[in-house]
């Protein structure tokens, strides 16, 4: 097999919280391992506080894990030479949900996009930076570019701003874009077009995407042929090909999550049954339950679940599940 583009090897990330005299530790990510091949799409899915953003930042080199390794093309990113680290930083770009915060409000679109081009010397001989920026705007369907080059961020809609942010990420010819909830702040009618744009960047330019989201429906849409990893309280509970994982979810948490997602079809929506959990409340991530972290809410939990931590194990068909009872969990929907 080819070498993965990015690998996490047993990555954990602990944050210190509170004041000096009342320290507490939160383990935001616990022993996560994953691989992403060049050109692939991975959806990293979970509810707020599950650690997905922390993983995204670890992939992008913004956090240094407290344990484990992040490998870029097989090399530990924290042991790269200066020049290698610079290349890695250019090739792995992060796009997050708040396009407003991502752009300097006092710079025009042209100024924001030409800066990285000039910084990395990516303007080909015989072209002006303005022409090149214009080409990137066309790629993200902001046409004609002349209408956008001299505008300021506040003069654009949320969807247009997120396109500018994607165009800026493209200017440095990335191999991987970590997109953290890129459509969640965008108007609903504009989300699909942005997802389509990312799918095109993947297909036509070979850019890989780590798509981080709480929204399983958009994950299915964007990463349809790719992989999905589902997180709960810092741990990966299920991972595999999107189609299979979503069609035959095995982990009770994923079953509950899937059963809770509303679907835009009244007849289907009203016929779907929710998998009832034993508790509605998400435990405090600072004091996660022992054993399987999901056990206090899990309708199937048995004694072993509260004492022993389950690890991800391969099932038939290629997905991996972290649940002691995985062979016995009834299929959902029933």
């Amino acid at each position, binding site marked *: 097999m080819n070498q993965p583009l990015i690998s996490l090897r047993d990555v954990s990330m602990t944050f210190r919280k509170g004041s000096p005299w009342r320290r507490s530790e939160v383990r935001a990510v616990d022993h996560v391992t994953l691989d992403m091949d060049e050109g692939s799409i991975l959806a990293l899915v979970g*509810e*707020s506080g599950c650690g997905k953003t922390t993983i995204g930042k670890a992939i992008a080199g913004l956090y240094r894990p407290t344990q484990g390794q992040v490998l870029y093309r097989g090399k530990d990113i924290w042991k790269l030479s200066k020049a290698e680290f610079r290349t890695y930083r250019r090739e792995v770009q992060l796009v997050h949900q708040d396009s407003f915060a991502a752009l300097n409000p006092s710079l025009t679109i042209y100024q924001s996009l030409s800066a990285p081009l000039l910084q990395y010397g990516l303007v080909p001989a015989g072209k002006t930076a303005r022409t090149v920026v214009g080409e990137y705007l066309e790629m993200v369907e902001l046409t004609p570019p002349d209408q956008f080059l001299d505008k300021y961020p506040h003069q654009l*809609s949320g*969807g*247009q701003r997120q396109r500018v942010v994607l165009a800026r990420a493209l200017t440095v010819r990335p191999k991987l874009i970590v997109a953290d909830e890129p459509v969640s702040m965008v*108007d*609903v*009618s*504009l*989300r*699909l*077009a942005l*997802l*389509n744009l990312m799918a095109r960047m993947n297909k036509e330019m070979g850019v890989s995407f780590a798509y981080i989201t*709480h*929204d*399983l*429906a*958009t994950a*299915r*849409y964007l990463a*349809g042929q790719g992989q999905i990893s589902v997180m709960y309280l810092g741990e990966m509970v299920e991972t595999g090909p999107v189609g299979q994982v*979503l069609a035959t979810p095995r982990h009770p948490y994923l079953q*509950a*999550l*899937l*059963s*809770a*997602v*509303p*679907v*835009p*079809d*009244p*007849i*289907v*929506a*009203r016929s779907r049954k*929710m998998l009832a*959990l034993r508790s*509605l*409340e*998400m435990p405090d991530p600072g004091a996660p339950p022992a054993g399987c972290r999901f056990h206090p809410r899990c309708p199937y939990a048995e004694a072993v679940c509260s004492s022993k931590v389950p690890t991800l194990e391969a099932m038939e068909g290629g997905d991996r599940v972290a649940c002691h009872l995985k062979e016995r969990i009834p299929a959902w929907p029933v």
Partner: protein
Amino acid sequence: MAQNTANEPILRIRDLSVEFTLRQGTLRAVDHVHLDVLPGELLAIVGESGSGKSTLGYGLVNLVSSPGQIAGGQVIYKNQNVFDLSPEALRQFRWKEVAMVFQAAQNAMNPVMRIEDQMVDTVQDHENRPRAEILKRATELLKLVRLQPEQVLKAYPHELSGGMRQRVIMALSLLLNPRVLLLDEPTTALDVVTQAYLLDILLDIRAKFGITMVFMTHDISIVAKVADRVAVMYAGQIVETGDVNEIFYRPHHPYTQGLIQAAPSLVGDLSDKRPVPGSPPDLFHLPTGCRFHTRCSYATDICRSTQPTTTALDGHTVACHHWEQVLGSNTEGSR
């Protein structure tokens, strides 16, 4: 489920407009809205950010505050125009007749007051009732929203999770037995699982008390789950209303059709998903004619020059010059 349309509306919104006077000029956030709310129904008002859902909600209970103002129209409740009520009558109307759970209401709770005291205060502001009686009712309602009353009543807001606070607010809004509950994005800040439970609880409450609900949301998938009837809002106007199945399976307005086609889903084929082109308009620079024409694939010259009027059909209304063509385009046999 679907209500008898012969029922007398419980709330009638007539030609309601709400404007904001800002430095850049005057902006009409709600424009000539005409809408009936039927007793016992769950009416969803769906639209994108800035389409005017919240402003319409504030208008309904005469709570629009500066720089906003009611620019015209009426809201009729029990044969009275809400805008003509005396301050005292309005105060009673607001909790006892029509209660509201507003967007981000969870942040509006008094942080230094225990939940039980907020419950008692809310009721005693309107009715002279003994504390014990109020707490008894509060206990029942907290159970109904699946909270543990003993624990929650003694708590301060910050000791509760977002999902718990939102359920407390819901219990609070029901304390005075209102006939109508306005819910503005009540689940938007919540996790998927919590949201699903909250929607379930809402449907329970409705089944139990027969309370009328007006539910404002940007999420068409939530509408599919909970609504009896739907009003679609675009740029301050209601462009279509109808029963939920009509709206989803036989949309008459291009925007409604677009919203549904653009909604990613966990079920079904994704290959017929289509984005809605363009962006919602800036209310200061509205397109001429139909406000949707810049994004509409059905648009013709008349759309660019003339605002469509609202056509009333059997149990359905639509404001589009070409609604018949839109209706005809819905795939045959798609239920």
